[in-house]
């Protein structure tokens, strides 16, 4: 058997990747992305009163671009049983459109 070492060569230049359309939910979309969309933000503020102030903890703020609402629940940073209801409303929003590179 011949085993050949794989190679991971560098690419040539950076062109921003194209982005697909994005739907909203509590599991795969970051908290920051939800808050950046006015309609999604309105849903969160309605369903989770006071959430904005609760997310201002300095140690939490850097992670809100990575954490979903579900992640916050998993890590104990948010206590709520409203995620299913929030999801139903978020999914009714029109997705963010795709963009070319």
């Amino acid at each position, binding site marked *: 058997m011949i085993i050949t070492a794989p190679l991971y060569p560098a690419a040539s230049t950076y062109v921003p990747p194209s982005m697909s359309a994005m739907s909203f939910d509590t599991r795969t979309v970051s908290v920051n992305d939800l808050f950046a969309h006015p309609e999604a933000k309105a849903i969160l503020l309605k369903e989770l009163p006071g959430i904005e102030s609760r997310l201002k903890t300095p140690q939490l703020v850097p992670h809100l671009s990575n954490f979903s609402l579900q992640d916050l629940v998993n*890590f104990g940073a948010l206590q709520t049983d409203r995620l299913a209801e929030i999801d139903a409303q978020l999914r009714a929003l029109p997705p963010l459109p795709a963009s070319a590179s």
Partner: protein
Amino acid sequence: MQDRRTFLALAASAAGTLALPLGIAEAATPSAAERAFRPGRDQNFDIGWHFRRGEASDFERPALPDDDWRILNLPHDWSVEDVPGGEAPRQLGPFDKRSKGGTDTGYTQGGEGWYRKRFVVRDLPTGGIARITFEGVNVASDVWLNGRHLGTNLYGYAPASYDLTPYLVVGGANVIAVRVRNIGQNSRWYAGSGIYRSVRLDVLPHAARIAPAGITASTRSLDGNVAQVDVRTEIEGADPSLTVITRLRLADGKIAGEAKSPAIAAVSQQITIRSPALWSPSSPNLYALESELRRGATVLDRWIQPFGIRIVTIDAEHGMAINGTPVKLRGACIHHDNGLLGACAFVDADERRILKLKERGFNAIRSSHNPSSRSFRDACDRHGMLLIEEAFDMWNVAKRKDDFSNQFAEHWREPLTSMVLAARNNPSVIMWSIGNEIPDRATPIGVEWSWKLANAVHALDPTRPVTAGLNGVMGREVTASTQTARAGWAGRTDQASTVFLDVAGYNYGLPIIEHDHAAYPQRVIYASETFPRDAYDYLMLAKRSPYMLGEFVWAGMDYLGEAGIGLNGQIAKGAPPFVIPQFPLFNANCGDIDLIGNQKPQSRARDVIWGLSPIEIAVQTPLADGKSEYVSLWGWSDETPNWTWPNAVGRSLAVRVYTAGDRVELTLNGKNVGSKSMTSADKMRAELMVPYAPGVLEAIAYVGSRVIGRQRLKTVSAPSSLRLTTERSPLRADKHALLHIGVDVTDAENRIVPDAARPVSVAISGPAVLVGFGSANPRAVGSLQAPAAQTFNGKALLILRLSGTPGVVRVGASSDGLRGDAVTVRIKT
């Protein structure tokens, strides 16, 4: 809680006299030979530095009197040294409740410190070069030679080299000065302060020489019984009339393969090795990679480094294989510190950590979240420990206000480059990680940074995949173009966080890994951080999923800082399930192995899950009335292999049995007190309630009617004696060598008393000095370098550094009311 400074006074008074004054003993003044350097590569430059803690503006002046400064040998970390004048209980030893780092740095203190060293370089002709390399200085450093500024390093985990030649006085007196600053809130964990890794000096007399980090070697192919090794050697002052000779030597010195080429600027050679001794975790065979630059028979330069012949392949269909053999990663995340020694990267301490983890079945380490020390990597090579080298914990968005994010945009390339160049010939290194839990990584700016970093790594080393530790969501779906994508991935739909990664590291991703695999079946995944409690689930996931390479538990060993993230505790029933870590907690308390190297209960459970042990037994510490137990996500229940509970006679205690069997039985003093059938739903863990009575508790595990293992816990009696155990001897007289001595509190039958917390003082004579003494107690703030400490769970650890001269080291230990113990260790020349 009684603090350790109080113990110190009590113990000293009880012991009568101590061989050492309080505090760490100072290094002897270096010899003339240790100050003088002749031509040669990789000369140790650690001995005889003058050190002063505090701010200054002109300590780089060559004429500055420094005779009254402390003289010490590197590695050194002042953040684990006692701060004089402190007042208990707010300030104890190196710990200060007002520390700017707080729980992040384990309440230790940073500040500023200066190092100076006088030295002589002989025999450096015109055209030669003298170059110094600091392998690690935390956090930021500036270096001067003879008053001239050589440079600044803002990322203390990365090696930094400086050319001394322009300002060097050949044959005369030279003074090198280093200012080190650890200022503000700059880290989420204990970084340490000072020149905490080795310093090396190259004195190369010839104008033609091998370039810094100028050798790259990798295995290109394995074909039956033949290996092809590619070696690239960069030459400064190249001259085709010179010759580059590259050899691979076996451990016995015999040449296994050789190539000779004219010394052009970049020499590419291929060496054929027949019947190669391959490197792998189970057989870490190493060759010496010897590179010579010659003029005729005269050797102008020679560089020897370890090298392993191995090929690592990774894909979603087959997972990871090393030399064609499938390997699942049983990994540990660890920080860089060596517990009681702080950040100091002693060879023996780094190696000890690796051996402790290897003993527990780990085959991989993620150097989180920064490049490891050279001594650590070399030990990984020697012992077959796979290693993920990680560059950053942050890019351009801060996690702490004074962290490297402030300099990242301007200075990211230097540490990334030095990480790869320093470690690309280590066979243990299997992947490069460009970051951990990077904020904003999935934004358009973050995606571009991801490409920049991954691409820079690929340009430096195209033989290893790039990864990152990813928490949370993976971001929008994206598609990269031909000129931007990694090889073979142009036009494929991926996600913002993973599009430029060859292997995706999921931090705490157990709930989403299989879902993501279904959506992106070509993605190679490993669990880059995991909770200890999920070990069984990750093992099963890895077994059924070729694309899943394995897991890295957070954390393999306890470490300083991130205090209390693995906390457990008793809280009022119905209270919110949370305990806020605070002073005096100073260590993370989340490791499988504790701060001094002993197994914790999660490690015993892992022993069973990973097949190292057929059965383990533990008993939960009884809960007080009205209390329930809180356990953090990174923690473990307060359970110990202990059947000595004098205050719980008649109470039902929770007994946990870990086994791969299908049934367990418990007997107490020979009588059956419970049994349980187990299925896969139990995940190898059974809990039975047993009314406590002193005696012998035995757990027996069965598969069908066959006994596969049994373990006993016996009630011990009162503390009776101390027991000292040297971990390794004999030793050679090396100023870098360490001697680890375990201190146990035992009963009359020589059994460790599992809850013993006893003050112990030690007396040391002979050619060694105390550099660490303490326990695994995460709340034991106080000196880490005094000759007195308190045991925790019946144990403590004493660490001595040899003085470099032969002789006999004698250590005596005493504790009021206990029979003392003593050990002697002969130190050879």
